[in-house]
């Protein structure tokens, strides 16, 4: 380029110092001689060379003086094109091939300046060997052709513009896009194509630029959206702009649809009160929805607002833990609960859910999308609930109850310390991975499970079970289990059951003991009854046996020796058999009695109250009220407690039965008092129909009864018992209504029992 300017110098200067010296002025003469460029002065008419500088001599391989003998045409390698440009006074002479003295050829670039001197038209020619350049030109041409092919074949529209913003070229894609024939498109103003909105000035900022989508115009006037990518090139001193056009109409439409969909989703999410966010993890850019800002109390756009800068310091570790777990793929969804600082400086609780939107090639997450939900309220409620739960726990544990909390979804059962204590476990035991089955007694497992199932199925309003559970030492303990569903999950299925556990080992044992005692008592009652019955029978049978024995013996005596042997033998047999019968009765009686009754001090009042307790049910069933009038501080009676219990029980039962058909008040009164002769008297009085004379006569006879289904041994047995105690039993006939039986038993006297 610089050489061109150098040449332009004489070009501009030449017309000014016109007509000096020989051919040029003195100054020019010097310049002429010193110039590095080959220069010739040629007569325009004759084309003879008037002057040549040394550089020209070097170029053509001849001395300047030699050159002055030649004509300009002699220099040309192609004789056919010898004269024309100078004759036409053209400043730029098209490329010519000149010859050197050695006949070698070179492409010559010639610039001419014309001037008039001494009546002659002269031309100052500056000649340059552009052999190197033409070679480059050729290469460029080849390359251009290649580019041209690419240009034409490019699937995307390319428009070539000149510095004036006019189309110089357009590839077929471009002509198709804009709907012009190629010829009509050339020379069009860019604005005609790119639309008025396009910042045309950007086209000429001479640096690569990108023009976002604007509305472009086709020849038929229709519009489309397109982006333009610009690049610039200088071609033969001309600035060219290469505009690559990308039709983004479809893409935009898709994007638009996407955005609409996103808007809808966002609307749905925000409608549910969730704030939506889009987090670019790498750049830590954080897009927030208006709802998100609203939740945190920010107005309008707040650039630089990033959620992770607002996390409560105490929650940071937890949140990042959740985030890492998700990003590593440990959890299918990012979920976390934490506090964020609001615009006013306070903190609110949020529940976050999110998903990774994109990852880089190495799998590192780039972008996450998610929601934040304000859970401050529910959190507070939860805390309140927890506090209230704790209060309940305190109250219940204060009662000695253990607590359990069963998450049905995970199957996890949380047990309170007290629960574990009841079964002898430490606080480190039973923390993870156990089930009710593991605790239940093998015999109860099935029943317990069925009970749980039935409760969870809604068949019972409350879970309540008494069952045995395994203690740490392997033994089993009776416990009362109670529970209630606290939470329901999806499909309204119970998801959480909370309940208590109470230690009822002692109660159970006591119940069992009581039951055993009752059974024993019943058994003893049967035995006593049997014993007393045998005793009563023995007495009643022994009387006639005694009579038989005595009378047979009497017969023998009265007969004396004179009697026939047969009669005496018969009587003797009768006497012996009576004794044998007596022996059988005695043995039977001894068998059921199993030895002797041992007498000990017995509190009659205690016997009465105990028996009333047992008779309570019978009394209740018969609508009978039992009234006790017991004298305080009675001395103990001497007797066999079970026998006396049997006695009192029989009298009470008789009394209750006597009032079965009684109209009006049904009351059984039992009185105790100190009687005469160091005895204690006890009276059992009913308000029944009383006893007729006839009944009274055989009252204590065995097998005499007024009851349709009675055996008639009750009173006989009673009498046997009383008499065995050296006491008496009798009927008090003085009542206005009903019947009263009274017995007296001796009190303990020193030296009585040994």
């Amino acid at each position, binding site marked *: 380029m610089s050489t061109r300017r150098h040449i332009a110098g004489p070009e501009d200067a030449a017309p000014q110092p016109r007509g000096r010296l020989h051919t040029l002025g003195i100054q020019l003469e010097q310049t002429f001689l010193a110039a590095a460029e080959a220069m010739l002065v040629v007569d325009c008419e004759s084309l003879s060379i008037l002057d040549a500088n040394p550089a020209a001599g070097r170029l053509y391989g001849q001395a300047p003086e030699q050159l002055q003998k030649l004509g300009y045409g002699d220099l040309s390698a192609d004789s056919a094109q010898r004269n024309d440009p100078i004759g036409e006074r053209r400043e730029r002479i098209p490329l010519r091939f000149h010859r050197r003295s050695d006949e070698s050829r070179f492409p010559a670039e010639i610039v001419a300046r014309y001037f008039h001197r001494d009546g002659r038209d002269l031309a100052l020619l500056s000649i340059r060997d552009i052999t190197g350049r033409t070679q480059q030109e050729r290469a460029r041409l080849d390359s251009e052709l290649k580019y041209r092919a690419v240009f034409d074949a490019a699937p995307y529209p390319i428009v070539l513009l000149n510095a004036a913003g006019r189309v110089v070229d357009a590839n077929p894609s471009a002509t198709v896009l804009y709907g012009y024939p190629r010829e009509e498109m050339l020379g069009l103003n860019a604005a005609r194509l790119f639309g008025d909105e396009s910042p045309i000035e950007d086209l000429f900022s001479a640096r690569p630029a990108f023009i976002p989508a604007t509305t472009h115009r086709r020849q038929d006037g229709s519009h489309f959206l397109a982006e333009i990518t610009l690049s610039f090139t200088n071609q033969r001193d001309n600035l060219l702009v290469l505009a690559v056009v990308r039709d983004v109409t479809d893409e935009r439409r898709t994007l638009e649809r996407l955005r609409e969909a996103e808007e809808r989703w966002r609307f749905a999410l925000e409608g549910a009160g969730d704030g939506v966010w889009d987090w670019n993890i790498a750049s830590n850019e954080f897009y927030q929805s208006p709802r998100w800002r609203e939740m945190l109390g920010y107005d309008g756009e707040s650039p630089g607002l990033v959620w992770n800068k607002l996390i409560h310091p105490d929650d940071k570790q937890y949140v990042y833990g959740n985030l890492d777990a998700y990003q590593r793929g440990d959890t299918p969804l990012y979920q976390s609960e934490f506090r964020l600082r609001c615009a006013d400086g306070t903190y609110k609780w949020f529940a976050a859910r999110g998903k990774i939107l994109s990852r880089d090639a190495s799998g590192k997450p780039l972008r996450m999308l998610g929601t934040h939900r304000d859970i401050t309220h529910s959190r507070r409620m939860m805390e309140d609930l927890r506090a209230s739960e704790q209060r309940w726990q305190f109250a219940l544990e204060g009662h000695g109850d253990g607590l359990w909390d069963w998450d049905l979804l995970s199957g996890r059962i949380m047990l309170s310390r007290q629960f574990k204590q009841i079964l002898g476990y430490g606080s480190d035991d039973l923390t993870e991975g156990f089930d009710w089955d593991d605790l239940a007694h093998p015999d109860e497992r099935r029943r317990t499970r069925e009970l749980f199932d039935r409760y969870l199925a809604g068949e019972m309003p409350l879970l309540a079970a008494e069952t045995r559970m395994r203690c740490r030492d392997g033994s089993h303990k009776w416990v009362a289990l109670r529970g209630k569903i606290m939470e329901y999950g999806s499909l309204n299925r119970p998801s959480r059951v909370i309940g208590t556990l109470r230690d009822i080992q002692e109660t159970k044992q006591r119940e069992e003991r009581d039951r055993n005692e009752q059974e024993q008592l019943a058994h003893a009652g049967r035995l006593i009854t049997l014993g007393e019955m045998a005793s009563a029978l023995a007495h009643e049978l022994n009387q006639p046996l*005694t*009579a038989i*024995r005595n009378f047979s013996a009497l017969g023998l005596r009265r007969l004396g020796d004179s009697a026939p042997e047969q009669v005496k033998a018969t009587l003797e047999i009768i006497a012996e058999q009576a004794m044998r019968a007596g022996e059988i009765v005695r043995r039977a009686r001894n068998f059921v009695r199993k030895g002797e009754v041992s007498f000990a001090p017995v509190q009659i009042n205690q016997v009465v109250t105990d028996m009333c307790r047992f008779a309570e049910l019978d009394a209740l069933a018969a609508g009978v009220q039992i009234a006790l009038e017991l004298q305080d501080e009675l001395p103990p009676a001497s007797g066999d407690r079970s026998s006396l219990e049997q006695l009192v029980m029989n009298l009470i039962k008789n009394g209750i039965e006597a009032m079965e058909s009684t109209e009006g008040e049904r009351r059984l009164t039992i009185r105790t008092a100190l009687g005469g002769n160091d005895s204690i008297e006890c009276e059992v009085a009913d308000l029944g129909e009383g006893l007729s004379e006839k009944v009274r006569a055989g009252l204590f006879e065995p097998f005499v009864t007024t009851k349709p289904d009675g055996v008639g041994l009750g009173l006989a047995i009673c009498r046997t018992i009383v008499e065995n105690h050296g006491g008496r039993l*009798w009927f008090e006939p003085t009542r206005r209504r009903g019947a009263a039986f009274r017995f007296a038993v001796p009190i303990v006297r020193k030296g009585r029992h040994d």
Partner: protein
Amino acid sequence: MTEHDLVCVVDDDEMVRMSVCMLIETLGVQARSYANCLQLMEDESSLKLAGCLVLDVRMPGISGLEMQERLESLRVDAPIIFISGHGDVPMVVRAMRGGALDFLQKPFDEQLLLDRVEQAIAISAKRRRERVKRATVEARLATLTPREKQVLEGIIAGRQNKVIAENLGISMKTVEQHRARIMEKMHAASLAELVRHVTELGRNE
């Protein structure tokens, strides 16, 4: 047989008491039967005369054992034989402690009962004889003057006449006179007899 050979039988069973009475009567002893103790108590004269009581333990009203206790206080010295349908050890112990002669379980060997009844009558007779004897000695003692009683005490204590005389401040001769009077009044053949009569009386009191 004497007028005292009366046996009282108490049993609520008529056939029993009848048979027992009839058996006892084969001994040539009179027997009276009572249905309960109360009846016997009311028949005081028989009670005084009786040489033996045969009581059933188990009876309505007053039982045999209770009867035994009451008779003790009435100074009835007829031995008691209990007859019972069944005898518990405490019952037997109580009866025997109360001075019963025996406790027979019904039905019993009638010979055993009759033996016991004879035994009882014998005991009863002996007691009566002793009581009569004691009454005689007492009656004779009652005839002694105060001085004679004092001398008698000295004799029983085994003191010599001289010592008695000194103690009472009387002469030996007077003591000897009292002594002769005492022997006469007490119908004693010898000094040994006299001492035995008086000491037996004291033991029984």
